[in-house]
Structures are given as structure tokens and as C-alpha cells.
């Protein structure tokens, strides 16, 4: 499998190299939303004397920069891609090979994140200097962030695949994707840090997987959680990842029975 991955990485880097501008633009799009919310919360915080619910202007900046980095590292577009592949008849050639189609997406996903990470960090540095960010974390926050971001990226990827399998039944899953994105927008800590949300919304947020992909790793990276709570969050992420893997395996097997290989 290592040899397969190595060769897929080489091929994917070659393909990605031809679309450098597009990759950079996608990266910049992903920054716009957190920056808008950062600007809004900074204005609110300033108007209220420098703090909202315990978050100073600098805390907001740290949170949204962390959220931008986490958003970048956990983004997964495989459900959009999968629908396109099924409709274009491009899934069938992959199904004919002794390698699960999921592996191609893993490589594609990794390449995009790695190749755009450096420019993203430069943009984040500019934002950090502009908003005078102060990092309030400990060394163990960074140590905790590593497994947390890996789990979050894997969870986001697997949820993408679970949604992707809906294509076998529905043919078009744009609406499912949109619904998921809107739900994530509300409950993943994109509008505000979770602790600033109304209590009921917080309960829902911690009961759904979206916060475990974005808000929680971002809070860990920002240094906004205790060690005990951080470890508890990791367990929550692992449980959601396990559930998504089981759901995917079940949905994939059932979906293949429905697959009609249209257009291929």
C-alpha cells in the first residue's frame, strides 16, 4: 500500500501542478468567511469595552485564525467530487481496480492541503499581525492539537464519504451537501465560539459531529480548553470517527448493490 500511495502522490502532484492558480484561489475563498466573522466580532468586542463573554478582541482573532487553519486542514470535497464522478461515468474504471476509490481521494485531499498550507500560513500571519493576536496556550495544547486535527480531518473526510454514498440512491446530492454545510455553519462554531452560543444550541452542537471537526480543534489550538476537557474532546472525536467509518462501510456495501453504472 505504501508503494501505491507513493505512486499516487507523484501522479497527483503532477496533476495538481497544472492547476496552481485554482488551488490558491480555493485556499483564499476558504479564508474569507472566518475573516468576515473575525471583523464582526472585533467590532462588537470593541464596542463593548474590549470583551464579549470573556473573549477579548485578541481571543477572537486567535480563535478565528485557528478556525481558518483547522478549516483548511479538515476540508473535504469528496462528496461533490463523487457525485460528479458517478454522473460522468468516471467511478466505474476505479471500481474495476483492486484499490478502493477512497484512496484516490485521500491522496488528492492531502496534496491540496500540503501544497496550499504555506501560502495559508502567510495569510494567517498577516491577519495575526493586523489584529494583534496573543496566543494563550501551553505546550500541551499543541501536543493535543496534533491528534485532534488528524481525527477532525479523518472525521470530515469520512462524513464526506458517507454523504457521497447517497449518490447511489439519489443520483444528485447537491442538496444533501448544502444541508450539511448549512448545519455545519450553525453548529460547528463558525458564527461564534461555541461558549458564546445560547445553551440549547451548545447542547445540540456538542451532540452533532460538526463541532468536533472545526470548533473543538480550533479551541485546542487557541489554548482555550483545559487538559481534561481537551482529552474528553479527543474521545468524542474518536467516537464520531468510529461511527462514521461503520456508517460508511455499511452504506458503501449497500450502495454498490444499487449502483447502475450509468454513463459508463
Amino acid at each position, binding site marked *: 500500500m505504501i508503494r501505491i500511495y507513493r505512486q499516487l502522490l507523484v501522479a497527483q502532484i503532477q496533476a495538481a501542478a497544472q492547476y496552481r492558480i485554482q488551488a490558491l484561489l480555493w485556499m483564499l475563498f476558504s479564508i474569507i468567511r472566518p475573516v468576515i466573522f473575525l471583523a464582526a466580532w472585533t467590532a462588537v468586542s470593541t464596542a463593548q469595552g474590549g470583551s464579549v463573554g470573556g473573549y477579548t478582541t485578541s481571543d477572537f482573532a486567535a480563535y478565528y485564525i485557528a478556525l481558518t487553519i483547522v478549516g483548511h486542514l479538515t476540508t473535504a470535497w469528496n462528496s461533490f467530487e463523487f457525485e460528479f464522478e458517478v454522473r460522468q461515468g468516471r467511478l466505474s*474504471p476505479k471500481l474495476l481496480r483492486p484499490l478502493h476509490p477512497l484512496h484516490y481521494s485521500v491522496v488528492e485531499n492531502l496534496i491540496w492541503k500540503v501544497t496550499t498550507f504555506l501560502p495559508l500560513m502567510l495569510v494567517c500571519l498577516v491577519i495575526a499581525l493586523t489584529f494583534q493576536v496573543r496566543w494563550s496556550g501551553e505546550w500541551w495544547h499543541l501536543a493535543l492539537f496534533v491528534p485532534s486535527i488528524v481525527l477532525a480531518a479523518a472525521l470530515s473526510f469520512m462524513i464526506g464519504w458517507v454523504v457521497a454514498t447517497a449518490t447511489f440512491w439519489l443520483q444528485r446530492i447537491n442538496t444533501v451537501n448544502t444541508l450539511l454545510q448549512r448545519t455545519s455553519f450553525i453548529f460547528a462554531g463558525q458564527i461564534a465560539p461555541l461558549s458564546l452560543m445560547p445553551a440549547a444550541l451548545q447542547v445540540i452542537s456538542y451532540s452533532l459531529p460538526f463541532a468536533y471537526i472545526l470548533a473543538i480543534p480550533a479551541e485546542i489550538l487557541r489554548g482555550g480548553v483545559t487538559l481534561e476537557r481537551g482529552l474528553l474532546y479527543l474521545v468524542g472525536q474518536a467516537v464520531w470517527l468510529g461511527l462514521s467509518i461503520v456508517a460508511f462501510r455499511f452504506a458503501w456495501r449497500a450502495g454498490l448493490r444499487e449502483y447502475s453504472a450509468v454513463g459508463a
Partner: protein
Amino acid sequence: MYALTPMDAPVVDVRALRKVYRVTERETGLAATFRSFVRRRYREVLAVDGITFHIDPGEVVGFLGPNGAGKTTTLKMLSGLLHPTSGEATVLGHVPWRREGDFLRGMTLLMGNRSQLVWDIPAADSFLVLKEIYAVPAAQYKRTLDELTELLDLGPLLHKLVRGLSLGERMKVEFAAGLLHSPGVAFLDEPTLGLDISMQGRIRRFVAEYNQRSGATILLTSHYMDDVVALCRRVIVIHHGVLLYDGALADLAERMAPYKRISVTLRGSVGDLSTFGEVVSSNENLATIHVPRAQAAERTARLVRELGDQLADISVEDPPIEEVIDKVFASERPLAETTA
């Protein structure tokens, strides 16, 4: 070649294979569109209706039928892309739709109108990915690639981006990609679709030579009868999902068209030739006559004798295969006992 089944066992074994698709249906018009929001109407389409056949190692079999006959659906089931509604099949000893690794490594499905290569990189790089996916040992990979490069004249194409290749060039690299792992069974679905005459001939020669060199079993669909005549001694004819004929191509012509075609060219205009057989066309000095196969020699001799100096040219041949196949499709019923 893969030897996953005993020597005498069929490589492809299909029993009562059946596939029913469920498709949504609605009438035209605004009212029908609104009704379909509330209640969907489905219709079952029987694509393959209980076909049974087997193919022995090394055979090249033509799989014929008009559009919508069920050919591609059958190939998709045999390559593991589709689950059948009922029936059984094994390919290389595996149930295809279980998609086991050994099965996938032992077969290939090539579709003339579909690409399996990455468009944004040269074919040579896609080949390296396939080498690793199929776990082809380095020495075998080199040998196979050299052989395919020679057979398909791939040299100048390997390092071009796939998206920059012409249709004919792309088909050649697609063939190579599909055969790099030396599959024991190849399902070829319209492999010459859209290619010019010269490229069609080249692909045909390649398939024949590949079959001879590797001993691979090949099941081929094509609308070009030249492909079938050049490559297949045996054909399976399917229509409306039902198997109509399975046997030798030559026997099919004899059974469906029990006549020979005599074409005569005269020095003057054509007179009444109906005493020699059924005159199917007559035009100035050219005429075509159908005569019963058994009497073809006697009628030809009579024509030569009776027309004498008037006769400029004469030829006796089987009716074109297209005509024979059309008759099978038109009959829409199985032709007696299958012979394979």
C-alpha cells in the same frame, strides 16, 4: 496467463443471469411534473432475461445485439460493476460482484467511449500508478509494456499528456492501460467505436495478436461486423435481453441465410435471370441473384454455360454478415439449441 480455474473449466460461466432496472417514469406536461413531486411512478425494465453461456480459456467470442439488447449490462455484471437481479456467474472462478482482489487483478473491462487514465498527466505516469495498484513485478511490467509499445506503436505517445492525445491515440493507450496487468479475461465493449478505418484495423490486429500471445479469453461487443468477422469464430447473439444464438459465426450464416449470393456482370443489359434464382437486384449490366446453398455450384455452372460470351464477370459469396445478423434480430426468438 492467470490460472485460477482448472484447465478444462470455463473461464466465464453464466447461468440464468437476469438484470432488472427500476426507472422513474412520468408523462410530459406541467400537471404530470407536479404529480411526480407527490408520487413517483416507477417502471421495471428487463435488461437481461436469464441468459446462460460459458466461455472456455483462450476463446475470442463476439457478443452481438442491437442497441439496448443487454450486452453492456451483461459485461458490467461480469466485470463486477453491477449486481444481477438473479442468476449466477463466475469469471476466473470468482463471483464478479463480490469484487475480490484476485478477480479484479485477473480481468479488464475496456469501453471504447470511456477513459480510465488521468487526463492531466502523461500516460506513462498513469501506467506506473496501475503497476503499483495491480502489484505487477518490475520485470513483468517492463516486458509487458515493451510488448504493448511494440504492438500498439506507443513510443511517441507515452510522454504526452493524455488530454492532448487524439481519439485513436487515446484508445491505444487505454488498451495498454487495461492490459498492463496481463489479465486472463478481457471484456471489450465497442473497442473501435469512433475510430477511422485504419485505426479500427490496427486495433483488430492488436486484439488478435494479444489473444495469440497471451492466451487471454476475450468477450467482445461491436457494432462493426468487420471486428467480429476478423476476430471471432464464435458469436453470442442477444436481443431484448434474451440469448438468441450461441455458436459458430459460420453456422449462423448458414442457418439464417441458407443461400449464396451470385453477382454477375454482363457485357450487355441484364435480361430475365429469374430462372437461375431469386433476383434481388438488377441494374443495367449488373445483377445479384440468391440461390440455395446446395445448388450454388450447379446454378453458377448453368449461368456460365447459358450466358456464354455475354458474361463479363461472376462471383459467388456468402451474404454479408450484417444481413445475417439483421435476420437474427428480426426473428426475436432463440435459434434452436445453442451449440457452444
